[in-house]
């Protein structure tokens, strides 16, 4: 077996180790490279910035702990922005396994910003049905969520004053790690009940949502950790996403180097094969 062959059949655990080190080292020794803001992230930021005080902002945290590293910083930044603008925040989740996480995020940011549950924000929790919940909320928000996560009846909450259904929402953002997520909120929510909407998703899903962005079906998209880091930069608050960007830079670079190496070995093997073929002939 030649060197190239050996390298092409390298134990994948070595690759895992390289990626592991590329993630760990920048987290321990951060560099802090500047982050450029993309128009899609600015789309969400600018829209929230343009909302008048007291507007209804719906945040659907449609992810579970698995996507926490990417979507948790997005949720934190968005909530900070909404609370800073004194928007009325209506939060919920369509993922049962994300309920606890969503509650933690909202309680943490509301505590930081001095906001009160029921008056400045409400966390509706989770309701079974996935996309059916969106349709039900479009018809009657109180029917879909008769009580909030803490068991308080939603009817009569000051934060929901004048809000009967999704038509009364000024801006909605779904932070989705899959289905139901951004697409479901567009198809069953925005398209039917006509509210403005933006999205956030994991990095792996972002390219799939670009058609929605280009056609104006969503007015902005926060894609993965990079998107979260951009939002943190816009907010002027360094958080976990900015800290993670160095690690992401290093892993991307490592994968590029690996791909280049594998192609060098591949071509050297092909060249050897051809030479052997000629000599054989």
């Amino acid at each position, binding site marked *: 077996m030649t060197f190239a062959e050996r390298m092409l059949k390298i134990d*994948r655990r070595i690759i895992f180790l390289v990626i592991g080190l590329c993630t760990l080292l920048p987290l321990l020794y951060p560099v802090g490279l500047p982050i450029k803001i993309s128009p899609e992230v600015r789309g969400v930021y600018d829209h929230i910035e343009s909302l008048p005080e007291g507007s209804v902002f719906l945040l659907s945290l449609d992810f579970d702990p698995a996507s926490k590293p990417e979507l948790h910083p997005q949720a934190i930044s968005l909530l900070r922005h909404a609370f800073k603008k004194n928007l009325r925040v209506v939060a919920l989740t369509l993922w049962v396994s994300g309920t606890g996480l969503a509650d933690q995020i909202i309680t943490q940011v509301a505590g930081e910003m001095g906001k009160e549950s029921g008056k400045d924000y409400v966390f509706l929790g989770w309701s079974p049905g996935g996309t059916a919940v969106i349709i039900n909320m479009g018809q009657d928000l109180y029917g879909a969520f008769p009580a909030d996560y803490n068991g308080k009846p939603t009817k009569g909450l000051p934060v929901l004053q004048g809000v009967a259904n999704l*038509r009364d929402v000024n801006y909605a953002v779904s932070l989705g790690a899959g289905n139901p997520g951004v697409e479901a909120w567009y198809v069953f929510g925005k398209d039917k009940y006509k509210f403005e909407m933006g999205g956030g998703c994991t990095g792996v899903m972002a390219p*799939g949502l670009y058609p929605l962005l280009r056609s104006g079906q969503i007015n902005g998209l926060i894609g993965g950790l990079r998107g979260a880091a951009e939002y943190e930069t816009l907010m002027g608050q360094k958080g976990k996403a900015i800290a993670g960007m160095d690690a992401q830079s290093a892993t991307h670079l490592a994968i590029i180097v690996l791909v280049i190496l594998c192609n060098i070995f591949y071509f050297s093997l092909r060249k050897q094969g051809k030479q052997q073929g000629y000599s054989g002939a």
Partner: protein
Amino acid sequence: MKRETLNVKRRGCRAWVTLLCVFVVALSQAGMPVFAQTDAQTRTALAPPQDVRVFDTPSDGGGSLTVLWSPAPDDSAATKYQLLLSEGTTAPDTAAMKVVAEIPANQRYVRDSKWPWWTRPAAKEEHQFTLRHGKGIELKDGTSYLITVARVLGDDRAIATPVQVTPQPNWINWNQMNNLVLALLFGGIVFYSIGTARKREIFLRRIPGLAAVDEAIGRATELGKPILYLTGAHDMHDPSTIAAAVILGRVAKRAAAYGTDLLVPHRDPITMAVCQEITKQAYLEAGKPDLYKDDSNFFITSDQFSYTAAVDGIMLRKKPAANFFMGSYFAEALLLTETGASTGAIQIAGTDSDHQLPFFVTTCDYTLIGEELYAASAYLSREPVQVGTLRGQDIGKALILGVIGIGTVLATIGVLFDAQWPQVFLDVFKDVK
């Protein structure tokens, strides 16, 4: 007479004072921009909005009214339009009517509304505003309201005569008729194609992924190892899961014929119940009902990564010789296929989850891309109904492609020659889409 003379005198005096004031004001504001002078001029001649029409918003679920009015020649951002509303039928003091919306006078035209050309209520340059129930506006179906529009410039306000109207819900959404026509047209094409396929044979392009199904099952049989079949992340609402279940029937039939074990772990209980029936029927049709096991279809969990961990465990312990990934997938795709690749199994994927295609293409031996998943049952069965549907899909695609091509040419002509006429056709296409 006296009084008249006095009046004339007073008027003359007032005119001089006014002239003097205007002169002083003009001098003091000489440095101000031109629009400020225009405002001052218009202030003296503020006319109320013309030709105000109000009607129940058509094609909606009620609780909404649409107001139209003609634009004034001097509409600018400095001038505002206010929409005034009051409940009841008797005309109140218009000045006391509730202001429900205020917009700059150079905004909100018919052309900005998203109504298609076949439901557009007036010429594109007319003003249009749709009032909806909610956000501080109360509009009840069946209740009469008086609505009017006021033109506001600074402190001056000119109000048009109120119009009485009653909001009502409608039974048909005419704005979506394009969708219905296209659906019926496409349905017609599909039925026609099925009819054609029943009369004569239609050529089907070879899909390598499906041609490999037999090879994969054969390999599993030779090695005496099971076949693993996944139906994806969605439930039976999703057509991709239905397509996956349909293909499962064909795969199960061949697995039964070869006597190979089949493992179908599920994320959705209803999909599991449906797939149990399909598998049972497939074994019956293959003449091997005794080989059928109820446990071949089993539920794991609906949680994404717990399911992935369990299936990866099955792959590593039972080492299936063939893995089928059909249906819809998310981040678990690569975790599943990469583990499958490490066990040396032959892997065939079929998905409409375009965001996961790069991972499937990289790690699987064959991948059915997009609608190939839906074409699979036609390919495997060669039934006229299935093959005809495929032909129908192709005709539909050709039509869409044709319109895209024409649209691109027209848009390019419009840009190259700075022509406006292609825009008319492009608008028609845009609304019909």
